[in-house]
């Protein structure tokens, strides 16, 4: 879960990391008031997506009138699909150097890692590899001040700034562990009047650890449809196409999308119904998919623990209970435990059932009128294709 900048800054302040003075504002009037108290400010859109500066989500205002106007422009604006609901007004800084600092994990070394560069800011990803220092952190001991100090000297900071850097990094590391963060990123860590402060902050908390952080505010990037399916405990991502897809397991779901796209189909979503045995959420998720009126639906289940007859019954039930489902072509690929029973149930309800993933993918693309098969279907000769 990503925290908004103002929340991450709150965590930093609690941890003893210096931050500029700032205030969260939900109306243009509040922004004007903030500017009266803070002086010239940067008015920053509070969104969970990156690149807001380039997208016009940050404006500098020297007067309360200008702050009010900036907030009026930014509040409610659409930033990469997300509506801006609040702005963070922060004292304008005169920055002499932008440093990059982050704490994250190294999957290969299986331990945390500190990343730093003397050339932070918006162009950090273009900084050459040799100008970026990565320092592994031993899990058992954590980041010790000397480690961060060494890194600071290696990126060229003088003795005083290096001490400040080391102090900030060790404080951030404690927050990183305490909050089960997968990323704490300060870009830039700004040098202002010879001292360092965190001018921006990004903090992502590990979703798998949320259970032990009930006190954290909840943020959500999901679209309404995504939120609805995820509430069932299933992994779901909306895509641009119009063929709905459901499979069990992330890998096979991805492979199903790949195979469908290979035949020219456009997937509407990624829905991983999980490898477990519960057919209840599967049926509910299928019902939600159908209710969005896709051109066709492809269900791809490899039954291991999941029994094919249970899945078939759940699918038939959705078809019967949902008026919309009758008009949406449904293709099911079903193999594994109790496969024959499952196929019999589906065929009895007039639903296409396949054993081969290839045939199922070709069929659903044809039914949706997409790809090569779709073009042929439009000419009315699908049957010849299906025989193969």
């Amino acid at each position: 879960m990503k925290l908004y900048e103002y929340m991450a800054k709150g965590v930093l302040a609690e941890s003893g990391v210096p931050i500029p003075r700032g205030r969260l504002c939900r109306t243009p009037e509040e922004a004007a008031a903030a500017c009266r108290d803070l002086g010239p400010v940067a008015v920053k859109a509070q969104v969970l997506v990156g690149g807001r500066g380039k997208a016009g989500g940050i404006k500098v205002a020297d007067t309360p009138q200008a702050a009010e106007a900036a907030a009026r422009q930014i509040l409610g604006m659409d930033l990469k699909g997300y509506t801006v609901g609040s702005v963070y007004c922060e004292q304008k800084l005169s920055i002499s150097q932008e440093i990059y600092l982050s704490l994250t994990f190294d999957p290969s070394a299986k331990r945390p890692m500190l990343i730093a560069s003397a050339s932070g800011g918006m162009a950090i990803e273009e900084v050459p590899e040799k100008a970026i220092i990565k320092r592994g952190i031993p899990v058992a001991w954590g980041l010790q001040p000397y480690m961060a100090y060494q890194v600071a000297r290696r990126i060229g900071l003088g003795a005083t700034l290096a001490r400040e850097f080391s102090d900030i990094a060790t404080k951030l590391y404690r927050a990183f562990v305490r909050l089960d963060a997968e990323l704490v990123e300060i870009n830039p860590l700004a040098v202002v009047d010879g001292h360092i402060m965190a001018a921006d902050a990004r903090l992502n908390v590990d979703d798998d650890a949320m259970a032990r952080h009930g006190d954290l505010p909840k943020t959500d990037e999901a679209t309404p449809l995504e939120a609805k399916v995820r509430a069932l405990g299933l992994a779901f991502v909306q895509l641009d196409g119009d063929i709905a897809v459901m499979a069990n397991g992330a890998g096979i779901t991805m492979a199903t999308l790949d195979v469908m796209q290979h035949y020219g189909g456009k997937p509407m979503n990624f829905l991983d119904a999980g490898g477990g045995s519960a057919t209840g959420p599967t049926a509910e998720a299928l019902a939600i998919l159908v209710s969005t009126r896709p051109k066709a639906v492809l269900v791809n289940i490899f039954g291991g623990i999941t029994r094919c007859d249970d899945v078939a019954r759940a699918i038939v039930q959705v078809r019967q209970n949902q008026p919309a489902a009758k008009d949406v072509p449904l293709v099911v690929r079903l193999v594994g435990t109790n496969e024959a029973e499952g196929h019999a149930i589906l065929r009895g309800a007039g639903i296409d059932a396949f054993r081969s993933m290839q045939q199922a993918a070709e069929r659903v693309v044809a039914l949706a009128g997409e790809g090569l098969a779709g073009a042929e279907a439009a000419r009315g000769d699908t049957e010849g294709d299906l025989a193969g």
Partner: protein
Amino acid sequence: MSVLGDEKTRVVVTGATGRQGSFHLGQMLEFGTRVVAGVTPGRQGQEVSGVPVYDTVETAVEKHGANAAVVFVPGTLAKDSVMECIDAGVPLVVVISEHVPLHDAMVINAFAAERGTTIVGPNTYGLCAPSARCKIGIPPNSIFQSGPVGVVARSGTLSYELVGSLTDAGLGQTTVVGMGGDRVAGLNFIDMLKRFERDPETEVVVLIGEIGGTAEEEAAEYIKGMSKPVIAYLAGKSAPPGKRMGHAGAIIERGRGTFESKVSALTAGGAKVAQLPWEVAPLVKGALKA
């Protein structure tokens, strides 16, 4: 022969009395795995499918000489259970638990490295050595057959799909191992490739990867020096670019992690990359003939 798990493997199941633990304990017994004990604190004296349950892993090791563990406890409790297994001297711990917090996974791996324990997972389906009738984990029993193919994968059901297609084509397996889908995992591709390279029974290796992370690119470097053919399949060709994790993600991956990057790295390493799932079995067959 197998490269992980054999006839002498004696398995203890933690979380044995739970819904998943008890079901899969029975399935493992049915496959032929020597499951010698279960562990659930407070349930000592009970039995699951005729297997005795104890309060601690230590007791299971003392009484039954357990030398492998499979962990079914919920994700936030997994760290404690895995560390208990490591501390009890169990050399192989398979972590089925999903949603294990990232920091917990790092702690588990640090402790395992200190004690020389092999960790498989978390969030894995486990492993299977068909000729030794040794399955430690949750895959369906019916998909396996003994033979010359070594399989290592990240994803579970995609492994079942591809292993099933190998078995259907008469291509049996020496050992099938899932590394798990989490970002910090115990055993990795290279660890398994090394074992398959050394194993006299394994003639061909199938590597099943997916987009994200750099594990496939790192594996490709090792494959360059391997004498055995490697067939790869990668899921995620059509996936939109993932939600990025700050600039740090880009700094670490540096252009790697994408489908194209993985295909070109593996191809340059000498692996054959199947474009579609059903191309894997024919490619394996071709490699065996060569």
